[in-house]
C-alpha cells in the first residue's frame, strides 16, 4: 500500500512535516476527501527520534461499526500477521489463543444500560508502561516519541511483559515464521505488539495502517497523530470529544484514548 513512485520525490525538509493535499498513488486514491491525508517525509530519518512528539491514537467508538474488521485486516497485512500459518497438528481453538494479534476487535455490552459498544484494542502505548518496567533486559522500551516497542534483538522471550500488560496487548510468537516482510521482521520466541507502524514513522508517513483502513472504509473511527502538537488533528479531536483511557485507575497515561466507553 505504499506509494510506488515515492522514491522519485525529491527530499523535503525532514524536520517540518508537510501535509500534502494531493492524493498520491493507488492507496491514497481510496482516501475519501476531507480526511487526514498522508504525511510524507520523503527521506528516511537520519537523526534520532525526539520527545518533541508523542504519537497516539484516538478512537471514537461511536463510529466503530459492528461487523467491520478493516483495521484489523489492514494491520495484519501491513505487518505480515496474515502470513501466520497454523502448525498442522494444532487445533483451531488453541491456535486462536497462540497466534499473534496486534489489534483486536472487542464488543461490549453495558451491564446496566445494555448498550453495545465496538472498539479496536491494541497496545495503548502507555506513558508509564508496565511492560517496560518489568522487562529484565530492557528489550521492551519506549522510544522518545512515545512508541512502546520490543527490541527483538534483546528480547529473551520471558513473557514477563505479557504478564504485566493490563491490556493483553502483546503476543508471543509460538511458532517459526516464514516469508516475513522486509519492513517488519518478526520471528519465533519473541514478544511483539502494535508498534504504531513504526517504520511508517521513520519513513515519514503520516498515518497508521489501521487508521488508513478505517478511513478508507469511511468510518474514520481511528485518528492518528501527535498528542504533543496542540494543532494536530488528533489534539483537536481530543479537545472536542470526551475521551478516556481504558483502566484509568492504573494511571498509565495511555497514548490511545477512547471516546464513548
Amino acid at each position, binding site marked *: 500500500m505504499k506509494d510506488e513512485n515515492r522514491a522519485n520525490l525529491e527530499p523535503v525538509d525532514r524536520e517540518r512535516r508537510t501535509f500534502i493535499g494531493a492524493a498520491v498513488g493507488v492507496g491514497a486514491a481510496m482516501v475519501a476527501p476531507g480526511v487526514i491525508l498522508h504525511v510524507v517525509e520523503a527521506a528516511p530519518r537520519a537523526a534520532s527520534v525526539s520527545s518533541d512528539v508523542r504519537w497516539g491514537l484516538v478512537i471514537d467508538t461511536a463510529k466503530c461499526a459492528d461487523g467491520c*474488521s478493516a483495521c*484489523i485486516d489492514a494491520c495484519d497485512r501491513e505487518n505480515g500477521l496474515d502470513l501466520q500459518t497454523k*502448525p498442522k497438528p494444532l487445533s483451531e*481453538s*488453541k*491456535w*486462536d*489463543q*497462540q*497466534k*499473534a*494479534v496486534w489489534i*483486536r*476487535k*472487542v*464488543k*461490549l*455490552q*453495558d*451491564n*446496566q444500560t445494555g448498550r*453495545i*459498544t465496538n472498539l479496536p*484494542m491494541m497496545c495503548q502505548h502507555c506513558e508509564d508502561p*508496565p511492560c*517496560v*518496567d*518489568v522487562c*529484565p*533486559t*530492557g*528489550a521492551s522500551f519506549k522510544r522518545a516519541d512515545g512508541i512502546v516497542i520490543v527490541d527483538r534483538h*534483546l*528480547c*529473551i*522471550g*520471558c*513473557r*514477563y511483559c*505479557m*504478564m*504485566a500488560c*493490563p*491490556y*493483553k496487548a*502483546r*503476543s*508471543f*510468537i*509460538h*511458532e*517459526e515464521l516464514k516469508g516475513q516482510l522486509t519492513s517488519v521482521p518478526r520471528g*519465533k*520466541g*519473541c*514478544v511483539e505488539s502494535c508498534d504504531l507502524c513504526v517504520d511508517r514513522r521513520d519513513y515519514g508517513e503520516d498515518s497508521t495502517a489501521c487508521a488508513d483502513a478505517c478511513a478508507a472504509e469511511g468510518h474514520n473511527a481511528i485518528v492518528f497523530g501527535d498528542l504533543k502538537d496542540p494543532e494536530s488533528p488528533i489534539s483537536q479531536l481530543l479537545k472536542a470529544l470526551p475521551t478516556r483511557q*481504558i*483502566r484509568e485507575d*492504573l494511571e498509565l497515561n495511555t497514548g490511545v484514548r477512547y471516546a464513548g*466507553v
Partner: protein
Amino acid sequence: MKRIVYREWRIPPARFWGILGILAAVIGIGTLSFGYMEHQGHWVTGMNNAVVWGLPHVFAVFLVIAASGALNIASIGTVFRKPIYKPLGRLSGLLAVALLVGGLLILVTDLGRPERLIVAITSYNFSSIFAWNIFLYTGFMAIVIAYLWTMADRQGGPFNRPVGILALFWRLALTTGTGSIFGFLVAREAYSAAILGPMFVVLSFAYGLSVFLLVLMFAFADEGRVIGPKILRRLKNLLAIFVAGSLYFMLIYHLTNLYAAKHDDFESWLLLRGGIYTFAFWVGSILIGGLLPLGILYHPEKGKNCNWVAAAAALVIVGGFSTMYVVIIGSQAYPMPLFPGQTILESGFGDGVGGRAASYWPSIPELLLGLGGVAVGLLITAVGVRVLQFLPESLADDVVPVDEETLGEAAFAKPA
C-alpha cells in the same frame, strides 16, 4: 560437646551410579523436551497468549522458593544459635543451591530465546524486579557457597555467623523478590496484593523444609545412618508450624481479597466457580498440602514415625505444587478486568468473553522440562553429598548437640 562428624554419602557405588543414572535419564529426557520446545516453538506447549506462564513456571517457582526455604535449617543453626540444627547446616546449604540451580534452569530453558541468555546477563533493566532477581539468584548462590565454605572449612569458621546472617537476609529478599514478580503485576487482580511477598516467605519455609526432610531421610535410610527421635521431633514440629503458618497466610490472603471490593469477583471465581483451579485450591492446597500433613504431624503416634513424617512432607510438596498452580496459572486464566461494568460479548483475542477463564492444559514437554529441573537439583545434591562431607555421620540422640546449650568452642584437651 562432641564434634560433629560429617561423612561422604557412602552407599555402594552400584547403587549410587544407579541413582545418578536415573536422574541423568530424567535430565536427558528434560533436555530432549527442551530441544523439542525450542525447535518447534512454544506452540507445542499448552501455553498461549493468555496464559503465558505454564507448568514450567510452576516447577521453577516452587524450586526457587523451596531453595530459599531449604536454607532455613542452616540459618536456624547458625544465626539463631540452635545447635541442634547445626549438623544439618551443610546439607541445607547444598540443597538450597541445588534446588535453585534446578529452578533457574527450568526458567532459562523455557525462554523463547534461550540462546540469548547472555543478553539477560549483560544488559539489565533496573526497574525490572526480574532483573533484580537475576542478581538475587546469582548473589544467593555465591553467598550460599561462601556459607557452605564457612561451614565446611576450618578457616571459614569465624565468618560463619556473619555470612549466615547475610545469607538469611538475602534469602528473605530472594523469596520476597520472587513473590514480587507476581506482586508487582498491578494489572492482574489476583496478584496486586502486598501480602503475596510475606506469604511466599512462609510458603518457602514449608516447602524447603519438606524437601529437606525427604532428602535427609532418604539419604540417611539408604546408608543406614541414624536419625534420632529427638531431632525428628524438632524437625516435624518445625514443619507443622510452617504448614500452619502457610494455611494462615493463605487465609489472610483470600480474606483480604474478598474484602477488597475490587477483587471479590476473582475470589468467588477461584473459591467456587474456577473448575480445576477451585479443585486444586481446596483439595490440593488446603487439604493435601495443609490439613492432612498437620493431622499427621500432630498425631500422637504417627507424628513420631519416620515414615509418616516423610509422608507428611511429601503431602506438603504435593500441596505446594497445587498452590503454585493456582497462584501462577489460575490467576492468569482469570480474565483481566478491562471494562468494569461491561460484559464482553465478542473479542478477537479471548478477553474473557462472558467472563470465561482462559484455557490452559499442560503438555507433556512442559512436564518433562519441569521434572528435568527437579532432577538437576537432586543430581547436584546427590553428587554433592557423595563427594563432599556434607551429611552428618549420625543424628542419633546422643550425638546431636543439646539444643539449650549455647555454642561454645569445643574443649580440646591434649593428653598429658
